[in-house]
Each structure stands twice: as structure tokens, then as C-alpha cells.
């Protein structure tokens, strides 16, 4: 049962990939990609968890209390914000594609290219 958090992370990755491949709309594909991305957050935080550990912030807890791993949290934290701007970039690309080709269906787009 202790691998369950990792399995959830793996599931999110696979289900996101499924959405990405089956997508009929580029916006849907971008959102599915962000589901894939959140699998890394779950995986990282699950790896860093420690039984009985509290948050690695000693604002009002004694300095010798047991805490979870702060390193993975630092990785995840920046990635969430940076990932949001990358998703925004992809959405902006989708808007441009729609302007140029008047469609956001990946299948129609690939038939346009030939």
C-alpha cells in the first residue's frame, strides 16, 4: 500500500498522455498536458514525505521537530508557477493557430500541412 501515492502519480501521467493523444481540440491538449505535469508534483511530494513530519517551516515549531523533505517542495513550488506561464505560452500559440488556420482540431491541422 505504500506505493499507492506513486501509482497515483503514474496514473496522472498516463491519463494525461491519453488525453493528449485522443484530443480533438488544442486547448484540450494543453490542459491534458498540465495534468501530465501535475503528476510530477504528486511524485516529488510523495518521495519527500516523512511519517509524522510537519511542514519544513519553523515559524512557530521547535527547531528539533521532525519535518518532511524541503528540497522536493522547493522544486515543485517553482515549477507550478513557471509551468503556468509555459501553459499560457501554449494557449497563446493555440490562439495564433486558430487565427491562421481557423481550426484548433489537430487532425484538421495536420491535413492542412499535407
Amino acid at each position, binding site marked *: 500500500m*505504500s506505493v499507492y*501515492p506513486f501509482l497515483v502519480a503514474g496514473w496522472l501521467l498516463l491519463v494525461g498522455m491519453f488525453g493528449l493523444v485522443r484530443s480533438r481540440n488544442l486547448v484540450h491538449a494543453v490542459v491534458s498536458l498540465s495534468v501530465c505535469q501535475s503528476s510530477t508534483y504528486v511524485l516529488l511530494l510523495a518521495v519527500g514525505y516523512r511519517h509524522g513530519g510537519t511542514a519544513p517551516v519553523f*515559524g512557530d515549531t521547535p*527547531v528539533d521537530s521532525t519535518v518532511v523533505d*524541503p528540497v522536493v517542495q522547493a522544486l515543485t*513550488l517553482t515549477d507550478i*508557477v*513557471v509551468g503556468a506561464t509555459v501553459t499560457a505560452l501554449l494557449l497563446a500559440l493555440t490562439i495564433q493557430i486558430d487565427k491562421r488556420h481557423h481550426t484548433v482540431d489537430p487532425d484538421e491541422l495536420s491535413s492542412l500541412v499535407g
Partner: protein
Amino acid sequence: MSRSARTALLLAAAAGIGVLLVLAFGLLPHFGTAHHPYGDRAVATALHDRHTANVVSSVNFDQRALDTLGEEFILFASVLGALVLLRPGRDEVEFTRNGDHLVDRSHQPGQVLDTVRLLGYLLLPVTMLVGWYIVVHGAITPGGGFQGGIVLATGLHLLYLAGDYRALRALSPIRPLDVGEAVAAGAFVLVGLTGTVLAGGFLTNFLPTGTLRSLTSGGTVPLLNTVVGIEVAAGIVLLLARFFEQDLRIRTDDHGGTR
């Protein structure tokens, strides 16, 4: 490739990835393990060496500040890219007059419940305050530049919820935010270079680290937090402003009669 062939390929690949993942998960330290060599070192350094109560902030802005510089420039580059892509094109018209009848009526003030609007206006200063609190207390309590910046940027859009797109536009002036974002990105590097000159290493913590849990503790951590807070807030507000502009005020002028 046809849709069904693509799905079949995906299912085969997904099965392979799934098996590999499950095998790998079995080799990971079990969930909740007490063995965290990096975490333990980061905690010890943050508390005893750098006097930073929020170890996550200490890792982000002090111990591994170079990584954050990289992240920060990914953020800068993707905001820049999205802004360039969302510029009005040559064949597009932008409606600037406030009373223009072509502005979508469903986004005009007046269609929002008064209670919602009041709540939006009341919560706006509160969220701004909370946002700044989160930014400047990043070294002590949960928070920091990334989270505070995003709270500031999202909080500002309560104005849109309140149905006041014009006030939102007035409060998110594109040019100062543009400059602010670039200056903040540069300031991060500047703090790093100051560390090189004063302490002998890029992004070395050159300020006195103070006492644990005081507002000025952590040396350069609160400084970098503020810089990143400004960059993230400006970046997200700029992005959302461009998305709003595209959606509400820009039309393709391919008919000549739409102006």
C-alpha cells in the same frame, strides 16, 4: 496517422511506460521513509547557518538560488513569448473607446449581482495586503515571491469578477508592468553579482542573516523574494491582460465593416 492507429500506438506505449513505472516505484524508498539525506542537510543549513525559518524559501533563494535564477528566466521567456504571440496582428482592430458598442455587452458592468460586485471591491485590498504579506514573510512563514506574486496577480482579477473590466484595465497599466518585470528579472542577477563581489560567489548570501524568525532574517532571501514577487505578479497580470484584450477587444478586420 489515423485516429484509431494513434490510439493503439498510445495504448501499447502506455502499457510499456506503466510497467516500467511500477517496476521503478518498487525500488523507490517507501512512502513516508525517514531517510531524507538532502532534506536533513537543507534543514540543518537553513536553521543553523542561514537563520531562515522557512527551509523551502532557504533552498529556493539561498542554497539553490542558481536553480531559481534558471526557473525565473524560463518564466520571463515564456511570458515574453506569450505576450509577443498575443499582440494584435496587422489585420486586426483593437477597440479602445470605453463606450464602444462593439465591446461585448456581456462583459459590461451591470450584469453582475450587486453583492458579488461589493464583495469583489471589498476583497481586493484584503487580497493585495495578503499577497504582499506572503511575499515579505517568505523567509519565516509559508510563502514567498512565487506564491505571493501569484496571489497578487490573481487578486487583482477580483475586479473582473466584480464586472469592472475598465477598472481592471486602469489598474494593470501595461508599460510600467513591462518595465517592472524586466527590472525585477535583472535585479535577481544584480543581487547575484553583488554576492560575487562581496562574498566571493554568484548568488552567495552576502547580507547578515539576522536572528531566526525575525522579518529581516535570511539575508538575501527576503530581498530575492521581493524581486521574484514583483516579477511573478507583473508577469501573470501582463499575461492575463493580453488574454483579456484578445478576447474582449480585438477582432479580425477582414470585412471592412466591423470597425
